[in-house]
């Protein structure tokens, strides 16, 4: 009898009528639709980016052939004698990103190996958040740092021929900016390497150094490569540091002590001026933007593929 009472109470509260049940189902469907729309916003964003770039890009390639765009060695759309060769901008972007990787990869990997293989938990708990702070500093601040500290205090005392705007300072600042990305992604990859691999190596008589460099790093290699590619992609798309520290003169040169204009810096230069819409000068930023978008997209896809492969092996 006691049980009956309990069940009766339960059914009075819990049994939904047919109308209630339908309402409930309806509400579930509405919620599902709204959430799906939220998720689709990201797809619309990508479509909008591509559409925005394509819309203006036709006007550009109506007047400039793809061959001229990729082979002319001068980029002077804002001068009377117009040339539309993207090579100076592209080579500046690639050179400075390469320089950034020369800074970020050794330092970032060293930090990652130290944190993953050597550091005691307490030290790791301190160092990791500090590196995260480095990742959270706005790029305009790195630009200031490059122009007001790296150039006058480091680059110019060492190389007197370096100008006040030079690619080397921008590279160093971008390297520092991307260092936390390299270190945290590589560390994640190394920590995902199963402990049994390490123990096996120790069992064969390897010491800590040999385990780190000959077992863990090779095992985590695809994750580490993904980290490097993502960092390079970040450097290629980086805008403020190169705009502030490397100058605004298109310059087809491999000398990092000279000033040069990156693709992103050119886009900023045009949008700061008052180039009227509808002119070929205005449409150049979309052509350069498209090249930038495709370049970074390619690198990101490569990185995703590597990460996917890495996860398939260990997770």
């Amino acid at each position, binding site marked *: 009898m006691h049980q009956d009472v309990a069940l009766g109470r339960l059914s009075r509260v819990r049994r939904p009528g047919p109308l209630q049940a339908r309402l409930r189902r309806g509400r579930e469907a509405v919620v599902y639709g709204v*959430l799906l729309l939220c998720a689709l*916003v990201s797809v619309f*964003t990508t479509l909008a980016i591509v559409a*925005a770039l394509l819309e203006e890009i036709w006007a550009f390639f109506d007047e400039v052939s793809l061959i001229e765009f990729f082979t002319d060695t001068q980029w002077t759309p804002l001068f009377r004698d117009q040339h539309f060769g993207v090579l100076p901008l592209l080579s500046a972007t690639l050179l400075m990103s390469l320089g950034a990787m020369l800074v970020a990869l050794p330092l970032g990997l060293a930090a990652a190996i130290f944190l993953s293989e050597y550091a005691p938990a307490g030290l790791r708990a301190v160092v990791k958040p500090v590196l995260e702070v480095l990742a959270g500093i706005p*790029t305009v601040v790195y630009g200031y*740092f490059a122009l007001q500290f790296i150039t006058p205090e480091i680059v110019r005392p060492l190389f007197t021929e370096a100008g006040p705007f030079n690619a080397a300072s921008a590279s160093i600042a971008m390297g520092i900016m991307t260092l936390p990305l390299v270190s945290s992604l590589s560390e994640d990859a190394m920590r995902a390497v199963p402990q049994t691999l390490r123990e096996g190596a120790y069992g064969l008589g390897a010491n800590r*150094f040999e385990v780190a460099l000959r077992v863990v790093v090779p095992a985590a290699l695809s994750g580490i490569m993904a980290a490097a590619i993502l960092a390079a992609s970040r450097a290629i798309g980086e*805008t403020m540091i190169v705009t502030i520290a490397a100058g605004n003169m298109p310059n087809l040169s491999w000398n990092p002590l000279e000033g040069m204009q990156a693709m*992103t810096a050119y886009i900023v230069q045009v949008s700061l001026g008052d180039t009227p819409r509808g002119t070929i000068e205005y449409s150049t930023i979309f052509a350069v933007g498209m090249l930038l978008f495709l370049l970074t997209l390619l690198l990101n896809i490569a990185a995703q593929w590597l990460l996917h492969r890495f996860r398939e092996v260990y997770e």
Partner: protein
Amino acid sequence: MIGAAALRRRMAVRRGTGAVFLALCFAGTCIAIAVLAVLLVTVTRDGIDRLSWGFINSFPSRHPEQAGIKAALFGTLWMMGFTALFAVPLGIGAAIYLEEFAPHNWLSRVIETNINNLAGVPSIVYGILGLAVFVRAMDLGRSVLAGSLTMALLILPIIIVASREGLRAVPPSIREAAIAVGATRWQTVRFQVLPAALPAIMTGVILALSRAIGETAPLIMIGALLFVPFTPGSPLDRFTVLPIQIFNWVSRPQPEFAENAAAGIIVLLVVLLSMNALAVFLRNWFERSRRW
């Protein structure tokens, strides 16, 4: 066979190499931290003298000693408010869909791949998008609203990724228990999963917003003015933000303006570091008070 002396020599070499390698790794880590210290010290040294109430409460000016960051500070506040308004519900909604509702089909895979790729799109490309869609096509002009919408799209992938991690950390047993007592899927999410994941989601939201506060390039693209001697009064007003004001000062040749830039950077970093600290605090508190 190798003799005892050769063996001892080889052991010494191995041990030595190991020690050198450890020293190199340690040095790399130290350099990274030292650079952060140098950066903070340089900026503080350059800008601390310029920092005063007058600097915070003045509009920009052609005279460096009278210029201040009032317009930029208000612009940043306005923009962040609207950015959060757009990005937070959208981001959490998308995360809930992907973690709790999405069927395993091609559409979910497309959305997922797409979010991963969006996270890697350079911020200046978002600026081009904002210029073409919000400023031109939707005719919002170079307004707070156009800037906030652009910024919301930029930080959306960050919020989605962080929220998904938060939701994934809630154990399935909680969902199963709710379903077992008759809750619908949405009731399960609304009353059980979301509250449990909220601290982690908030941490991600704060970090995403702090990223947006420091972004400069996309707002230059949509034309956030470099010289704005007023605070915005409505979402359709023109505006400037702190990083753009700093960029403006950095790009002038006079050293007095560089000093202003450094002072502006100090304000920006104080805001960002307190947000980071809040996020770390929330995360630690969350991990301590976890009920499972």
